[in-house]
């Protein structure tokens, strides 16, 4: 380092080298994204993805089965129906979207994830104020809501309102159909 300011710069570097700790929820947020990518790959078929791996010497037996799996993604409106009729009890991937440019965090909780109890809340990711998260939801009718900044309950403006005793907080209704009407 140059002469003057060597001590000052060294002190500066010393300060900057202090470790920075991130919250453990960071890991969870990353894994939510990663698992979504994983699910998408399974939907599209993972043969190309695994085949490109230079250090894979064999393809797992279940890869072809996974490639044949069907997970439909429908993201518009309150009514979710898979492209092919599916037996009851199946899940389809549903995308939840909330426009909230001022929010610091957005999570989705509802009947499909025990309303976030047991750390099951779906953490949305922010893209320039548009928060979204996709998750598999079982067929059926579900009440749900967005939880903004960990404390403000917001209904989904694109979905029907859930009528029922909602403890004074807004919530929405989602219908996931099992078969073609």
């Amino acid at each position, binding site marked *: 380092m140059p002469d003057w300011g060597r001590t000052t710069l060294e002190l500066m570097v010393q300060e900057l080298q202090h470790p920075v700790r991130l919250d453990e929820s960071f890991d969870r947020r990353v894994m939510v994204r990663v698992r979504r990518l994983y699910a998408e790959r399974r939907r599209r078929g993972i043969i190309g993805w695994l085949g490109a791996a230079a250090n894979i010497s064999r393809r797992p037996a279940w890869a072809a089965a996974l490639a044949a799996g069907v997970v439909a993604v429908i993201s518009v*409106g*309150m*009514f979710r*129906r898979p492209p092919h009729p599916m037996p009851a009890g199946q899940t389809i991937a549903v995308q939840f979207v909330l426009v909230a440019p001022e929010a610091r965090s957005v999570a989705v*909780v509802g*009947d499909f994830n*025990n*309303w*976030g*109890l*047991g750390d099951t809340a779906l953490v949305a990711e922010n893209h320039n104020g548009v928060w979204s998260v996709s998750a598999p939801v079982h*067929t*059926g*009718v579900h*009440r749900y809501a967005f939880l903004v900044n960990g404390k403000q*309950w917001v209904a989904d403006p*694109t979905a*029907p*309102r*859930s*009528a*029922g*005793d*909602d*403890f*004074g*907080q807004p*919530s929405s*209704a989602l*219908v996931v*159909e099992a078969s073609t*009407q």
Partner: protein
Amino acid sequence: MRTRTARSFLAVLLVASAFRSTEAQDPRLSNRLDAPTRKALSALVDSARAQGIPVEPLMEKVYQGLAMGADGSRIVVAVRSLTFEMGNAHRVLGAVATTDELKAAASAVHAGVPAVELGKMKKQSGLRRSLTLPFTVLADIVSRGVPVAAATNAIKSLVGAGAKDKDISDFQRNVSVDIEKGAQPAAAAETRAKGAVAPTPKTENREHE
């Protein structure tokens, strides 16, 4: 008699275990609910199962209450209300109704739709068709201000005309947008229902003009 007593006893055991097994799966449930609340909820679950009402929606209501910070007594009130509404729905829709239909019907009843109207719709649509979505939309438009009678008539006309769930979903979206733009709720529902069930006009052949 002895057999019936044994069966009833078994049913009570199974029912009582429904709430307790959920507690066991999520110990935080027992940590977050005081003893009187747990006792009251167990009794409600018992009663629901005895009436043939599915208990899963009741547990979902408990979770919702906990997540939203409601106290025990508030949760009990909500679960009791839901049990009552589902019971009404169950009586008119019968044993053929699915859990989801009952949940959706309970929403409509909570919004103020007489259960008997839901029964009429079920008869009209036949056994094959699930009315989960029509009931959900009915509850929604009533909560947006469409009078119960107008809302019920609109949904009935859609179901009666064989409208698909997708069409009814579109109807809900159109009505809510119209209301947001200032339309009278009843007028919005009636107009959109007419449009949804109107026959498609024949395309005139203008080639010779």
